[in-house]
């Protein structure tokens, strides 16, 4: 078989191998999605966020390099934002029917923590913009699964929280570079 044809076959094998390995990362989306569907009122929103998260995790793991390195920090940051409203819900402060501003506050707090975590981890990365975008996307989607308990307002609050802490770290890092 000629060199170019064999190389094309090898490249296909490489990409399929990466995709097979990356598909395992999609399973990370399952536990938060299941918890979210059980806790929140809008199954549609949880389903959409969970599916988007699974697709994003597989895509980042397949693409590799900085995108893949951002998965775990983003996921762990997102778990923080995901847990805060659920803990609030468990202790009766953020249950459906409870005062929304309090629930919203939990989402914003979780978002602030997630943004700070991804922002600080970004400082160790060579390609900071890519890391930040990938990390925040994952953190945002995981957090959204928890904040869906407070509806669109909760999700928006969490995303605003992420941006409030991640943006200054990004600006500071750019100014120092």
């Amino acid at each position, binding site marked *: 078989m000629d060199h170019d044809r064999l190389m094309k076959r*090898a490249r296909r094998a490489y990409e399929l191998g990466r995709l097979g390995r990356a598909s395992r990362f999609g399973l990370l989306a399952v536990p938060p999605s299941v918890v979210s569907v059980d806790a929140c009122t809008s199954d549609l929103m949880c389903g959409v966020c969970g599916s988007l998260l699974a697709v994003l995790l597989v895509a980042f793991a397949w693409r590799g390099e900085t995108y*893949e390195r951002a998965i775990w920090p983003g996921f762990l940051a997102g778990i923080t934002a995901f847990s805060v409203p659920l803990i609030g819900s468990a202790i009766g402060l953020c249950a459906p029917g409870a005062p929304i501003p309090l629930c919203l506050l939990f989402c914003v707090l979780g978002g602030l923590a997630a943004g700070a975590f991804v922002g600080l981890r970004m400082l160790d990365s060579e390609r900071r913009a890519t890391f930040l975008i990938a990390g925040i996307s994952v953190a945002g989607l995981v957090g959204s699964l928890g904040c869906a308990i407070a509806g669109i307002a909760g999700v928006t609050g969490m995303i605003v929280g992420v941006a409030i802490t991640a943006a200054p770290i990004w600006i500071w890092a750019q100014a120092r570079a």
Partner: protein
Amino acid sequence: MDRAEQRELHALVVRLASGDRGAFRPVFDRVRPMIERFALRALPNRADAEDVAQQALMKLFSRASEFDPDRDAVSWILGIAAYEVKTARKKRVRSKEELGASGLEEISNPAPTPEAQLIDRDLLGALTEVLGAMRTEDAEAILASASIIERPAIAPATFRKRLQRAMVRFKAAWGATKHGP
């Protein structure tokens, strides 16, 4: 393949494993001749060797993202090639057994007998295992002496001494296997 080239190959395989597509072509260009040489030495039939080399290349690239950076790239690559050689030999033994069962065992065939192939396969597996457990420098010296990889760029006398030491260690390790004395 000398030490610097091995380090370079290792760095390229690590880059490929992390998802850097820019490392694909340089890895392919270095690995293909290495695997082909290995398969040609391990299998008597050229067509079989070419098939095995292609299969080993496909397997290697499909597993490239699972490469552990702490491992030696050359040992990893040759380990995959050795496994493919073993599988090919096993297939040949099986197809020969099937031919024998259908009454064609009388056909004259200059190829090794199934027993000899089984012994070869067994020995190759043990050899791969022993070489994999040895220090990279020792394994390199032995592989270079068998012309599987290129000689390291060192003085011939130094290489002879290194090979001598490697063979002493190899004999000790080989003695510990079931094939030893």
